[in-house]
């Protein structure tokens, strides 16, 4: 089906996919130990030479010389720094002394809708190797519960997220870490695992216990092995989808009981550091709440001789400040979290708060208090952003009040948001309970670049997809997918898996439709609220989106001519994964009060058939003789008894 060229493209795509996490957050949490250290240096020259040293030079602080060796890579995005600090020999020194390393970060981004996006990231790095099968018994910062799970089930990578609410891409832009509503779990097992399904089953049950979530509802009916959409993000080149398991529980409701075990995984708990902000009643009083755990092996150093384990805990919250702020456009840490920051986590090697001030270069849009002298720039999701940085390990950050309460007072309405280049919608069309049609709309807002996306749809078996009705149209023309991987469902065993690669023409809407038939289930297979409907998990769109930075034609004038003729691949596109809305589909229902009646009535009909045939088969026609009267019959009985001939 797929021509060779498209397979080659897929492989390239897969390799790029594996970089997504680093690209997404390359400014926030840059490690020296990324799987491919070449990607970042490539980014530097093209991107950062554009800086005009005369105007607002990014001020970079190197206040803490001890941490420099860790920090300097974070600032590598700016060229000045790269020139100023050539220190290759210092890089190796701290890595050999520290076994565990913990960093925490909070990014605050005022959204154009007026909401605030707060994104926490906690990263624990541990230079140990579960992969070799060694028994590890001593745990320092890395949570033991997860370490044991990884070694017991030979997990190579584990990604789990719990999300309440739906990320509104068109109002909020792209999230740093996307996640679908409900729970999502995907795991790469090591290629030494023989019974992957068994390990997966046990793992989901164990994780269900660890996170107090209904992950035990993950079974073969909602597990798939996508062939191209989910590639390993860490070390390792195993891309055989047999070792990948992906499941989504769109119905999962996320609440405090999921947050508490998540918080317990942090080295400082909620006692110190950024985690003191995590008060459940505030975090769940929000428009969007998503917590995630990502575990993957990464390189220990540039040579990548030995792996180390990275545990990344993220928490993304969108606060609706309009409704809680009584119409005043003003927010502060205290208002959002009912806490302020007083100290960094003592175990953290780095603890920082970033505030996105890109839209506010001159302070005309909002006022940020207390002002920070530190600014940094980074390319996030293909867009150059400027951040104010607050280093919590520095005592001066807290000022005289010994507490940091960031406050933003809006002066004007926020300007136009740059429209995300990739956006999607999904809905069910049709009426009645017999058939229906799933429509997925994928928008490419790029004015002149076409780019391919990978669409992954997982549909439960009780919506029987008809793949021959699959149509992909863009601009009223058929758009034939270059790659289709379809795995039909098995009743009560496995879901439909549809993966395809579609080229999105520039500035267009691509509509993917597929018809389905609604199955009538057994009465015990319905949920307790059958007429509420059945959820269909979000479809996943993975894409390499052309970067905004590359789109910015003004830059061509500022760049040195020798650097700008050929577009650089890493710079010109970035990886995005977006999740569509989950669907809620009604199925025809039987009458749940009727099992006895139905069994009785149907059996009666069968018995009518059986009885009438039995009658005709076993009996013969006889002339009906009038039966003698009762007295005569009695007399005959007596006569028979006496041995006298009957009457």
């Amino acid at each position, binding site marked *: 089906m797929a021509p060779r060229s498209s397979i080659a493209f897929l492989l390239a795509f897969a390799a790029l996919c594996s970089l997504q996490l680093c690209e997404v957050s390359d400014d926030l949490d840059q490690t020296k130990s990324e799987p491919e250290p070449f990607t970042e240096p490539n980014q530097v020259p093209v991107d950062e030479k554009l800086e005009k040293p005369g105007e607002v030079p990014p001020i970079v602080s190197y206040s803490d010389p001890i941490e420099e060796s860790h920090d300097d890579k974070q600032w590598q995005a700016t060229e000045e720094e790269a020139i100023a600090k050539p220190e290759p020999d210092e890089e190796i020194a701290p890595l050999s002394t520290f076994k565990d390393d913990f960093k925490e970060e909070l990014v605050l981004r005022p959204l154009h809708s007026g909401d605030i996006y707060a994104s926490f990231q906690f990263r624990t790095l541990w230079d140990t190797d579960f992969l070799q099968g060694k028994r590890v018994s001593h745990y320092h910062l890395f949570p033991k519960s997860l370490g044991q799970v990884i070694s017991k089930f030979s997990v190579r990578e584990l990604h789990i997220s719990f999300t309440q609410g739906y990320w509104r891409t068109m109002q909020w832009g792209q999230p740093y870490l996307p996640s679908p509503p409900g729970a999502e779990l995907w795991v790469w097992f090591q290629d030494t695992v023989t019974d992957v399904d068994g390990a997966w089953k046990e793992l989901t049950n164990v994780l269900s216990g660890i996170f107090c979530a209904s992950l035990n509802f993950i079974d073969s009916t909602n597990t798939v092995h996508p062939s191209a959409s989910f590639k390993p993000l860490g070390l390792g080149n195993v891309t055989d989808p047999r070792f990948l398991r992906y499941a989504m529980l769109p119905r999962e409701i996320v609440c405090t009981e999921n947050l508490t075990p998540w918080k317990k995984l942090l080295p400082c708990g909620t006692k110190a550091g950024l985690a003191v902000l995590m008060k459940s009643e505030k975090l769940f009083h929000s428009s969007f709440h998503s917590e995630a755990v990502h575990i993957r092996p990464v390189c220990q150093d540039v040579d990548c001789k030995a792996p180390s384990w990275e545990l990344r805990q993220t928490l993304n919250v969108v606060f609706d400040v309009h409704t809680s702020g009584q119409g005043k456009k003003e927010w502060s840490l205290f208002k959002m979290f009912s806490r302020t920051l007083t100290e960094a986590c003592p175990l953290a090697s780095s603890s920082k708060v970033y505030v996105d001030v890109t839209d506010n270069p001159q302070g005309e849009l909002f006022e940020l208090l207390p002002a920070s002298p530190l600014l940094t720039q980074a390319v996030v999701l293909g867009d150059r952003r400027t951040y104010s940085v607050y280093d919590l390990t520095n005592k001066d950050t807290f000022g005289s009040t010994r507490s940091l309460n960031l406050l933003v007072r809006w002066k004007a309405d926020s300007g136009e948001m740059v429209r995300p280049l990739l956006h999607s919608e999904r809905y069910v069309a049709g009426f009645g309970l017999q058939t229906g049609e799933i429509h997925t709309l994928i928008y490419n807002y790029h004015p002149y670049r076409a780019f391919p996306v990978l669409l992954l749809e997982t549909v439960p078996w009780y919506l029987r997809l008809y793949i021959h009705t699959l149509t992909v149209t863009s601009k009223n023309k058929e758009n034939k997918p270059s790659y289709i991987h379809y795995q039909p469902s098995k009743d009560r065993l496995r879901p439909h898996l549809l993966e395809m690669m579609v080229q999105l023409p520039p500035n267009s809407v691509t509509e993917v439709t597929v018809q389905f038939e609604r*199955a009538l289930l057994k009465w015990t297979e319905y949920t307790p609220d059958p007429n509420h409907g059945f959820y269909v998990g979000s479809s996943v769109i993975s894409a390499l989106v052309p970067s905004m930075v590359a789109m910015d034609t003004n830059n061509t004038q500022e760049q040195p001519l020798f650097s700008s003729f050929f577009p650089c691949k890493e710079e010109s596109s970035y990886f995005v994964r977006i999740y569509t809305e989950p669907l809620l589909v009604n199925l025809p229902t039987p009458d749940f009060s009727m099992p006895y009646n*139905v069994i009785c009535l149907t059996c009666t009909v069968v018995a009518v058939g059986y009885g009438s045939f039995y009658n005709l088969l076993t009996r013969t026609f006889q002339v009906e*003789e009038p039966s003698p009267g009762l007295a005569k019959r009695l007399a005959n009985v007596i006569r028979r008894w006496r041995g006298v001939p009957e009457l």
Partner: protein
Amino acid sequence: MAAPLTLVLIVAVTIRAALFRSSLAELISERVEVVSPLNAWKRVVEGLALLDLGVSPYSGDVFHETPLIIYFFHFVIDYAEIVFMIADGITAVALYLAVQHYNKNVFRKQKYALEADRYPHDCLELMRTPKEMYYVPLKVAMFYLWNPFTILSCVAKSTCGLNNAVIALFILCTIKGSALLSAIFLALATYQSIYPLTLFAPALIYLLQRLYIPVNLRRPSFWLFTSQYAFMYFGSLAVIVCLSFFLLTSWDFIPSVYGFILSVPDLTPNIGLFWYFFAEMFEHFRLFFICVFQINVFFYSIPLSIKLKDHPVFLMFMQIAIISIFKSYPTVGDIALYMAFLPVWSHLYRFLRNIFLVCCVLLACSALFPVLWHLWIYAGSANSNFYYAITLLFNVAQILLVSDYFYAYLRREHHLSHGLYLKRKDGGEATLVLK
């Protein structure tokens, strides 16, 4: 006789062609009464699409046709409408010829019996006359081709029409006395949907009768022919199954086709008894009731063969009717096949007890199916029980119809041996009862 048959065929084809061109075709092909998960055209197309994608059609649970069907339509997918019209035509012509031949035999036998003076004297009015029998084959063809059920089934492109054609050819070959062809077509029909397995007995009895071999378990000639026929049947079945294996080089189709028919995992509503029963069944009784319901279909063939061992063609009719009532995924196309036989038994009319009632119920149910379906699925003002009630009633009516014909047949046979006007011992007019 060829001219009227041609006329019937032309009219039938015209109706079908007109319906294929109309917007109704789409609507009809979605009706659950007309197509079942086993024979829906949509699923055939889906199977072909899966093959094109390089996915085995049996890896999913949408396609349940046999490999031969998929390969057949692989070549004629563009002419599907014509194929289905031809299939209906073949069925009608085959039934026409078969019934013509059968009637000749019946008449000859009756003549011999009359000459041998084996009938009681008052049975003259039960005798069949050439005049009455003359139009029976044509009526059969007409009953099949003009039956709204057949037309719907054909317009929906339900592969049931093909199965009917195979069964009709099997009947024709059997009645013409060609044991090999009969075995081959029976094997094909069995391969398509298992249930025609029960037609083995009537075919065997008919062929034995034709060769004047008495059905006697002690005779070696009986066993010789039985083993011959069984060998031909199972041999061709094995050849067909192996051929299917080599077409796809996998045995996946066995669980996907036969497992699907026997274990009834798909509970899509249809006109049968299975869907709601097993949707509402308690989980720990499911296996038991599936066994009971499936045995129920096959079980009747033994007592029926014993009772009707002298009347194999009627036995065949009974078996086809029982299959279409009690099978796991029945459609109206199955009903149309046995209804086509009703003109053959038109001489039983005087002994039918409740034909009027049954006809009314069948008509009313056929009209109520779409109405209650609409109320349940689209309007939401009724629930599944409404549709279920109609399927129950429809099946009761069918059972009454078939058992009524059975009763009438047995009763006529009784009269032919005992006289039409029976007297009681005391000389009064007797009434016949089953005892």
